[in-house]
């Protein structure tokens, strides 16, 4: 009964996968890499780990906007429709995004040499009460309205920690994205178009980040900048660079953000690239169930059909069938499956439907076991009196097969079906483990394969237990529930076995 419940649970997971997951299983950095499951934060070693945090308000009107000492600057608040494409960059969800913007109009003096002039100083405070994060995202949306005789303009971001120390976040050395490339007007922004000045602290090489909390000698920025609890001040400065002529600058800014990548995320945490493991897990159940059940049904159907006929009609064909079973039972299953997958993946066209071919292969290689069981059952049933009676009454072969033999072996067929599925689930997972790159679909085997590949860095992150344990447990439990179901069916149809 439990077995059936578990099977139904995983079937529901598989069917409703898109509705019970919040992320595409292949999206990276939904949280920090190696984030623990959120519920694990109740346990001491993980207490106080930050979840994904949006620390500042998206509405610029609520910020403390100070015009720098120049009297020729005016600001005003307005509303505008923010393009959706920017929302995903900022890590705001569509309902968090604010339509408020701040318009800045500044007249700049003419200078002989280009000078950087701070035009706007916009700041907000937030309380941070967690352990330090590894990484954070920050930035602002920009809409240049009018840029006349301005050499360039750019943004600076500052963070003041509770003890009063001020860090300049746009420091080239510790930022993954270089300020020169993305921040300034001359590098990427265009007139009359909303764009995002987006920065993060994630090191470009994920593998470096995976070497441990401090990477390869490069400290994780979050560990340094947010290592205290208390009130922080996040400041954003608009800086214009003057030119030889008197200039004018008009810019709209909106939705500044400071987003901490969680070290605790979701139901199952994240993997080494910050992919959501829960959605991988849920989508993974699809392949396991699909391959297990389809291969089981195919092989048992084939096996039962051949077993019925081989048992009922004793002749040359039945003899041939049994010899074929002898041969197939001698061929090593897993090595052949591995060879098969390798050969299939050499052919790009066939590799697209790899799971279809795996199902076919499983069915072809495993019907002999079923055939043998069914055949011996049929051989013994055939000798029973009621079959003889039916024959005396003039029943034809097909009638006896259909009405007398088939119902009697159906129990065995169901039991065999349930007992063969776990083998297929395990073998499929093993194939995915050995060939993780075969397809993009996440599977339990592939999750474990990736976890195994990163076992060396997992030791830095609490052994990455959330990554190793859940897919493995799921495979075991799903397989076992099929085994239980098989035994239960066996008992129902073979009452002699009861009490085992």
């Amino acid at each position, binding site marked *: 009964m439990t077995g059936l419940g578990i099977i139904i649970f995983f079937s529901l997971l598989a069917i409703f996968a898109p509705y019970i997951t919040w992320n595409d299983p292949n999206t990276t950095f939904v949280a920090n890499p190696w984030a623990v499951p959120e519920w694990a934060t109740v346990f001491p070693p993980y207490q106080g780990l930050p979840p994904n945090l949006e620390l500042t308000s998206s509405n610029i009107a609520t910020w403390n906007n100070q015009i720098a000492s120049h009297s020729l600057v005016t600001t005003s608040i307005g509303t505008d429709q923010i393009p959706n494409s920017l929302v995903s960059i900022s890590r705001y969800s569509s309902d968090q995004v604010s339509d408020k913007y701040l318009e800045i109009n500044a007249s700049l003096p003419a200078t002989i040499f280009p000078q950087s002039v701070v035009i706007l100083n916009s700041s907000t405070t937030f309380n941070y009460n967690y352990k330090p994060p590894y990484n954070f995202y920050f930035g602002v949306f920009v809409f240049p309205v009018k840029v006349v005789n301005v050499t360039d303009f750019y943004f600076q971001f500052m963070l003041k920690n509770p003890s009063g120390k001020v860090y300049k976040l746009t420091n080239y050395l510790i930022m993954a994205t270089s300020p020169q490339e993305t921040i300034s007007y001359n590098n990427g922004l265009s007139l009359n178009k909303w764009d995002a000045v987006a920065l993060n602290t994630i090191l470009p090489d994920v593998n470096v980040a995976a070497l441990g909390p401090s990477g390869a000698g490069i400290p994780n920025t979050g560990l340094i900048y947010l290592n205290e609890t208390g009130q922080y001040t996040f400041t954003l400065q608009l800086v214009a660079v003057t030119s030889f002529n008197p200039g004018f600058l008009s810019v709209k800014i909106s939705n500044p953000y400071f987003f901490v990548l969680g070290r605790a995320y979701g139901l199952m945490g994240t993997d080494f690239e910050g992919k959501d493991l829960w959605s991988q897990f849920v989508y993974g159940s699809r392949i396991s169930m699909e391959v297990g059940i389809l291969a089981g049904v195919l092989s048992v159907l084939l096996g039962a059909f051949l077993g019925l006929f081989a048992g009922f009609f004793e002749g040359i064909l039945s003899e041939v069938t049994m010899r074929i079973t002898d041969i197939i039972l001698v061929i090593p299953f897993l090595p052949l499956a*591995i060879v098969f997958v390798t050969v299939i993946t050499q052919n790009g066209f066939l590799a697209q439907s790899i799971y279809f071919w795996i199902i076919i292969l499983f069915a072809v290689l495993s019907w002999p076991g079923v055939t043998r069981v069914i055949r011996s059952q049929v051989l013994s049933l055939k000798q029973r009196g009621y079959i003889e009676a039916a024959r005396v009454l003039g029943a034809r072969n097909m009638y006896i097969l259909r009405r007398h033999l088939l119902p009697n072996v159906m129990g065995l067929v169901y039991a065999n079906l349930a007992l063969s599925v776990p083998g297929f689930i395990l073998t499929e997972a093993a194939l995915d483990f050995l060939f993780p790159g075969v397809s993009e679909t996440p599977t339990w085997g592939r999750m474990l394969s990736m976890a195994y590949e990163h076992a060396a860095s997992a030791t830095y992150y609490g052994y990455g237990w959330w990554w190793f344990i859940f897919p493995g447990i799921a495979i075991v439990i799903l397989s076992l529930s099929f085994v239980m179901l098989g035994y239960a069916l066996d008992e129902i149809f073979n009452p002699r076995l009861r009490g085992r």
Partner: protein
Amino acid sequence: MGLKRFIISRIITMFVVLFVVAVINFIIFQVLPFTVLGIDPKTWFVPAGGTRSDVYLDKIRQEVIHNLGLDLPLQERFFQYIYAMFTFNFGYNVGGALDGPVADTILRFAPYTILLLGASTVASFIISIYLGIFSAHKRGKTFDKVSLITLLFFYAMPSFWIGSLLLLFFAFGLKWSPPNAESYFSGLTGLDFVYALLKAFLLPFFSLTLISVGGFYLIMRSSAIDIITEDYILMARAKGLKTRKILFKHVQKNSILPILTVFAISLGFVLSGAIITETIFGWPGLGYWSFVAIDTLDFPFEQAFFFIISLMVLVANFIADILYGIVDPRVRTSW
């Protein structure tokens, strides 16, 4: 039918089956890839290093194609192949991972596999006999329930999962043993080698034993329950024999039959059984090398490997049948 005739007829059947297996291997490794799927041997032959000149590469390719007999018509290749297989003349490795004659590489790496698989099969065999008998004895009690659930769990556990967990904790975490066995003891000699080998041996041995103990245990337990409920056990109990004596004299001897057959058959799969475990721990046995060979499309190695596995399985089945007759005199009447 006497024993002699039984053996002769079984040997003849074995040869027929082996022949058909050889034919199937031929189709898998020689017809399917090149003819049906259109894989060009030139695309899969990657020489080690890969820095040699094109002329040299072409020469090697021609040599490989000639060695594999790919320049011959199919039927000629087939007869050559069958002859080669049955004379154990398996040709040369291609693909760059392994060098030299296939027969040599198989002989070189087989001892590692036999050591690992043999030891773990025997260990799990012994453990499961004792656990199974005790479980049957304490049927329905806590001991039985706990060991049944635990071993069912082991039984359904994917080998790569338990392998990577062990590797994670004991090799990477606690550093008790090396993460990659092969690089750990290659190049060592004498006692150092033996010590390193044993140290690297423990994890794969433990993981394989855990995996295979479940299946044995389930069979052993159910056959021991069958025996324990027999009248003569009740009789032995009634005449005052000690439980120990009943369990290990009467029950063990009689309930060991089914598991003995399974044991013999699983010995047949010793060579192939541990591809995943060997790959995870980098244990340089045949399983590991067969995976490497598949990766580098070393078909001569693979077809020899498959042929030898099938041969081993057939021989093991044969031995199991004979063994069964020796242990259980009742079976002999059917010979």
